[in-house]
Structure formats: structure tokens, C-alpha cells
């Protein structure tokens, strides 16, 4: 297990290298650079040349990349042009809020999805099943920016149940502040969870060992939790890990709506200002997050189904 984990972690290195090359080239291929973004319409060729010289943007691309790579290997990701601060500090100090938001959203989505999927599968073809499926299909159709605004208006402004802006002062206060953003994200990903979990539960419910268990007199609680749910959970892990990219995309929008200073909103702002150093580090962090989550997903697979360990 340790060897497997170490190997998988080693495999992240070429992924990160690839991502760094692609992001490095892509951001420089888009017209406009930090000088243009900062100087706007009054930019004179002289001012632009001066800023480009200051930022080293007049060097050949390959040289800029190797400078970046060499410095990054030493833990130096450069200085943000816009923030005028160490990029590592700018980006990493925003990471906890984004991670907390994503974790909270996944937890909420699972809490929403598991009972609904169970109910839907258990009452397959009945009114409850149809109602649940329609409800979650509506959720799937709602764009994140719209559902976020509606939740903020109804639960935040009208009912005043949750705050709608900022990150709070830590602990329970932060949890309250993150509730609406996390719920917004949960609504967007839970339909996919419900759908896959429902079909998985339906399949397990029809399996022989469930029939046997039932015949042996197991209580429905034991049967459902220890046998049905446990054996149905694997698709959930797959769906969550696969949809992490989508979740990151949603986080970017949700952070804007709820004024959360996370990495997502930082990345969007940095693309507008062409803050290359921040874009590079934020992209690497997100890439690392996807790779590590996939690894965690694989490890969870083994925990859920020890037979999987034999195939490693």
C-alpha cells in the first residue's frame, strides 16, 4: 500500500511538469500581457516596453520557462505582478478557504444524495422515485451563478438564516459563512451522485447476497447499511473524483458570488490581469488537487472493497 501510494505520488511529477508547460505557453499565447492589462488604453509603447523589461517578458519564451522551472524547484514561484507579493504567499493563504468550501460541498452533496438515492432505488418506479429524479434533474439544470444568487436571496436576505458574504471569523462562524456557497455547489454535483448511486443501489438490491441476507432474517437496517450501501458506494467515489474539475469550476463562480477570497476567484482575477506567476501556481495547485484526489479515491476503493488491493 505504501509502495503503491509512493509510486502514484511519483507519477504526479510528470503530470505537474506537463501542466506547468501547457499553462506557461497558453497564458502567453493569449493576446495581452501584464503590461497591457495594467496600463490599459493609455499605455504608450515606451511604458509597455518598460514594464515588459521589468517583468522579464522580453526574454525568449524557453528562457522564461526554464527560469520559472529552476526557481520553482527551489520553492520560489516569483512575485505577483498585481499583488506585488510572493506568489506562494498570495496563493497558499487563499487555499484553506477553497479546500474547506470544496470539502463542505462534497460532504453536503453526499448527505443529500445518499438517502435520496436509497429512497429512489427502494421505491423504484413509484411516485417518490419520480419526484426525487425530477427534483435532482432540475438541480442539474440550474447554473451555479443562478442557484447561488437565489439561495443568497432566499436563505440569506429574506430568511436571514446564513450570512451571504465573506469567510467569517473562524470556527462555527466560518462554517455558517460557507454553508450557502457549499450548498450551491452541492446542488450542482448531487444530481450526478444520485443518478449513479441509484442505479448502483438498484443493482445491489437485486443481487443474490441481498436476497440471501433477507432470507436469513437480517434486519433491513443491517442489510441496507452493511451490504447494500457499502457495495454501492464505489461509484460515488468515482463520480466525486471525476467531477472534481467541475467542482473547481463551480468554486470559481461561487467564490465570486459570496465574496470568498479563495484560489478560484484569485485565478479568475489573475487571468484578467495576466498575472502569469499567480496563474501558473494556482493551476499547479488545482492540478495537484485533482491528482491527489484521484489517488485518495483509489485508496478509498481499497477500503470499500479490499479485493481491489489484490489487483494493485
Amino acid at each position, binding site marked *: 500500500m505504501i509502495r503503491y501510494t509512493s509510486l502514484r505520488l511519483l507519477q504526479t511529477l510528470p503530470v505537474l511538469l506537463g501542466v506547468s508547460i501547457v499553462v506557461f505557453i497558453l497564458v502567453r499565447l493569449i493576446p*495581452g500581457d501584464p503590461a497591457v492589462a495594467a496600463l490599459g488604453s493609455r499605455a504608450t509603447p515606451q511604458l509597455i516596453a518598460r514594464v515588459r523589461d521589468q517583468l522579464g517578458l522580453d526574454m525568449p519564451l524557453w528562457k522564461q520557462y526554464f527560469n520559472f522551472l529552476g526557481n520553482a524547484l527551489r520553492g520560489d514561484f516569483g512575485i505577483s505582478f*498585481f499583488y506585488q507579493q510572493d506568489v506562494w504567499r498570495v496563493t497558499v493563504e487563499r487555499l*484553506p478557504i477553497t479546500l474547506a468550501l470544496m470539502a*463542505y460541498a462534497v460532504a453536503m452533496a453526499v448527505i443529500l444524495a445518499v438517502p435520496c438515492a436509497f429512497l429512489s432505488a427502494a421505491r423504484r418506479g413509484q411516485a417518490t422515485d419520480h419526484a426525487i429524479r425530477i427534483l435532482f434533474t432540475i438541480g442539474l439544470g440550474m447554473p451555479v451563478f443562478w442557484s447561488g444568487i437565489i439561495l443568497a436571496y432566499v436563505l440569506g436576505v429574506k430568511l436571514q438564516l446564513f450570512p*451571504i*458574504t*465573506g469567510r467569517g471569523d473562524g470556527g462555527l462562524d466560518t462554517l455558517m459563512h460557507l454553508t450557502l456557497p457549499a450548498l450551491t455547489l452541492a446542488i450542482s454535483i448531487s444530481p450526478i451522485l444520485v443518478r449513479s448511486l441509484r442505479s448502483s443501489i438498484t443493482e445491489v438490491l437485486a443481487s443474490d447476497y441481498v436476497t440471501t441476507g433477507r432470507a436469513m432474517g437480517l434486519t433491513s437496517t443491517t442489510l441496507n447499511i*452493511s451490504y447494500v450501501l457499502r457495495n454501492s458506494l464505489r461509484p460515488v467515489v468515482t463520480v466525486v473524483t471525476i467531477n472534481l474539475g467541475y467542482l473547481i469550476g463551480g468554486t470559481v463562480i461561487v467564490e465570486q458570488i459570496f465574496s470568498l*477570497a479563495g484560489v478560484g*476567484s484569485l485565478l479568475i482575477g489573475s487571468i484578467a490581469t495576466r498575472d502569469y506567476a499567480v496563474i501558473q501556481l494556482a493551476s499547479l495547485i488545482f492540478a495537484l488537487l485533482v491528482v491527489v484526489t484521484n489517488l485518495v479515491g483509489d485508496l478509498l476503493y481499497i477500503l470499500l472493497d479490499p479485493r481491489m488491493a489484490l489487483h494493485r
Partner: protein
Amino acid sequence: MSGTSKKTGMIVAAALVLAGGGLVLHLSRENPAATAPAAPRDNKTLIVARPADIFTFDAFNTQDDRSMFTQLTVFERLVKLSADGKSVEPELATEWTVAPDGMSATFKLREGVKFWNGNLLTAKDVVFSLTRAIDQKGSWGFLFSPIKVVEAVDPQTVRIVMSEPFAPLLPALSTFAASIYEEANFVGQGAAAGEHPMGTGAFMLESWNRGQNVVMTANPTYWQSGKPSIGKLIFRVVGDEAARTLQLASGDIQVATDVPANQIDQITAAGGKVVTVPGSSVGFVTMNHKVKPFDQAAVRCALAWAVDRESIAKSIYFGRAHAAKSILPTSTFFYDSETSPIGFDLKKARELLASSTVPKGFSFTATVPSGDNTKLSIAQIWAAGLAQIGVTMNIEQVEATTAQEMYNTEKFTMRISAWTNDTPDPDQLMGVALDYRPQNALHSSYRNDTALNMVLAGRSELDPAKRQTIYTDLQKLINHDCPFIYTVEEDRIFATSPRVTNFTPNSQGKYSFENTNLN
């Protein structure tokens, strides 16, 4: 096996919960500056939500409105615009005299004005600040181009010497670009001077959490006794316009800027107040005259006559705009609406097009910044008008910075935007639009020496009546030659909590808070 897995599962679950909890707790310890209060802690904290952060406190390279307006709050200038926007009043200077030949002006500084650090304002600081302001290498040097030198006569007196009479001197000195700051602090800060201002304004910078907020506290040594009444002023970044409206309704913020017209009803229904500055921004279209057939005035004017300005004002701005009659906002000095302005007349547009080399029409691509639905809607309404005269306008939505690069490098055909002025004097806008030497007439490649000479004459003419004639003639020239196309003049809209009083942005839509109260 099952039992072991259960235990492992529980451990994993517990670890996840702890990690999540730890993360949440960690948030309160990490970056304390970033955890600026989400809501006012007392009734004297005013939170203003704006769509983006500022770039700098240094006017030298300032480009964005947010930076300009923030600089107006922390710094002061020798003079300021009067409340009606029609004249200038004393600020850091108590009196001034302009030499009869118009070649110099002498300013007497207000006694006893202190910077936030307690140091007295002297002529040396004014000379330092204004010498940087007039530097032609800076972004705003053009506003002061006739100024040769700024010199200290004595510690309380400053003289500005010009190379020619300079009529817009006082309005130019009222702009953010002529802000006065402490020389010792600026020099001492070195490259970080744009982040650590030292001014005499009503509010002093407490912290700037980039991308999140600018926190300011009342200046205890402010020279206007009893002001400001607000203890703390926070400019918070709220990128989403709907989120700004929601935060105002929930009481999280007290002022929202950049309010779209379609949210006014929602704001007033929720008890909010709407503050509008009429006529401070004019929809503006730049054509690249190097691209044929935009080199012909008949074509440009035909396109201009096909803009249904009334429909745009009504359907896009919900009545919070009106048909523009000049490239100048109405609040500009010497604005003249009686200069045969261009309206909506498809017959005239067809006649003009018939007299050009493309009598049957042509097609072209207009660039609109992506995400800007207002500009997109304007383009769509205009495209419908153009289709009726045989012209096809393809609309290309381009990411904002990319669009900026296309404009700066003149790789565009048509750019749909809007503009505002920073001084009420028409010299600024007429200068950048018609003086082709510094910026190729807003990158349009329009070259008209008659227009250029009129701009220069208007700048050096001290007689207001003669200036009125010059600027009236310039507005007529623009309506005849159509180097640029104006669309509608829109209100600048703010929303405030009913608790806010005396929030009065000036005629250019610029705001400061020394007179604002929070009840």
C-alpha cells in the same frame, strides 16, 4: 475483515472530519488581514462594494476608475470641483492668482495641514507631487502638457510656470492626477510607494488586502474639524453585480457602485436608495480608419445615423440614459447640444452610404468585451439598424484584456465602449480624441489638422466666450466628419443603504467620503 474495514472507515471518516474542522479553524488564524469584518462592527463603519480591486495609490501609472476614486479619498489637491461641477474651489490652496499673460499661477497653501504621520504639508511636497504629475512619461502628463515647471516660492507658496497660457489649469489640478502626497514618505518607500501612501485626506490607509478590500480609518488630524463622521471606510471587492445588490439588501454593505439600471427597482423595493449622476458617461465607438471603408466620412456618418439611440436608452438602460448629442458628456464645460447632433435617420444613412464607394453596403466586425451584456445589447440594436441600410455588422465578443491589446496595437475594426472625463474641461476628451500625435487619435488613425489646431487653440485661449466658440465648432466638426460615433449618455448609478446621507458623487461620478454620514 468486515470489522477491520469498519474501523478503518471510521478512522478515515474521523480524519476527514478533523481535517475539515482543522481547516475551518485554521482559516481564522491564517492571514488575519484577510478576515476583514464581514459586517460593520459599529454604526460608523461604511462598506462600499465595488467590482474590482485597485491597482495602485500612485497616479503616475493609474488607469482604472477604482484606483482614481480611492486616491481622491486618501489624497487632496490644491483645488477641488465645486458641488455643481461648474467651477473649482479651494482645497489645500486657500487662494491663487493667475498672471495676466496666463503664463504662471501662484498658489497659497492652507496653514497647518498635516499628513497622517503628523508632518506638516509644505510647498516642497506640492512641488514634488506636481513635478511627477506633469512628467510626460506618466500616464496623465498630457493633462498638464503646457506646464514647464512647478517651484516653491516659500514654504507656503507654490508657483506653476507654463510654456503657453493654459486655460484648463485649475480643472486639471482638481483631478486625482494632481494629488498631493508627502515627498519624504514617497522617496523612503521606493518601489513600494504606490502601496504605502501618505496623504492629508479625510481617511488614511489602514490595510490593503489585495483582491479583497482596502480598509481606511478616519484621519484624526484632518484639517476640516468635525470631519469625517465615519470612523472606518472599507472598499470591498464584490465582483458580481447581483451579489452587490444582495449584500446591500442584507445590510452587509452600505454603498454599491456600478449598479446596473435593471436592478434599480429591486434595490428600491428592498428599501435601498439610488444615487445617480446624470450624464457622466457617453457610449463611444472607435473605428479604425486604416480599415476601408472607414476612411470615408460618408460611411462613418452613415453608420452613425443608423444608431437607434432612443431604443437603446429605453430598452437597455430602462430610461437611465438618453440619446447623446456630442462625444462630450453634458456636464463638460462648453458642451453644446445645438451643433446639429446626429440622430436616428435611416433615410439619411442610406443617402450618405449611396455617396460613398460602398453604396450597396458592406460587412465588418465589431469588437465587444466578453461578459459586457450592455455593450453587446447596444451592438445588437445597432446591427439591426445597419441591416436596414445594407450593412452587416458581425459582433465578436473578446476577453477584456485581449480586446485591450487589439485596440492598443490597432488590430481592430470597430470597438464599442464608453468614456467619461476626469476633468470637466473639454480639453481632456477633445485632446485625446483629436490630437493624433500621442496616441494616434485613440488608435483610430484619424488625422485632421484643422481639428488639432482648434484643440490647441482651445487649450491656450483664456477668454471663456472664445473657448465656447472653439468647442462649439469642434462639436460641429465631429458631427460632420464622424471620426467617432456617440451612442447614449448614461447615468452613473450607485445604491446606498437608507442610513447613508451626503453621499454625493461629482459630475464625473467621482466620490469621496469626508461629508458622508452613516445614521
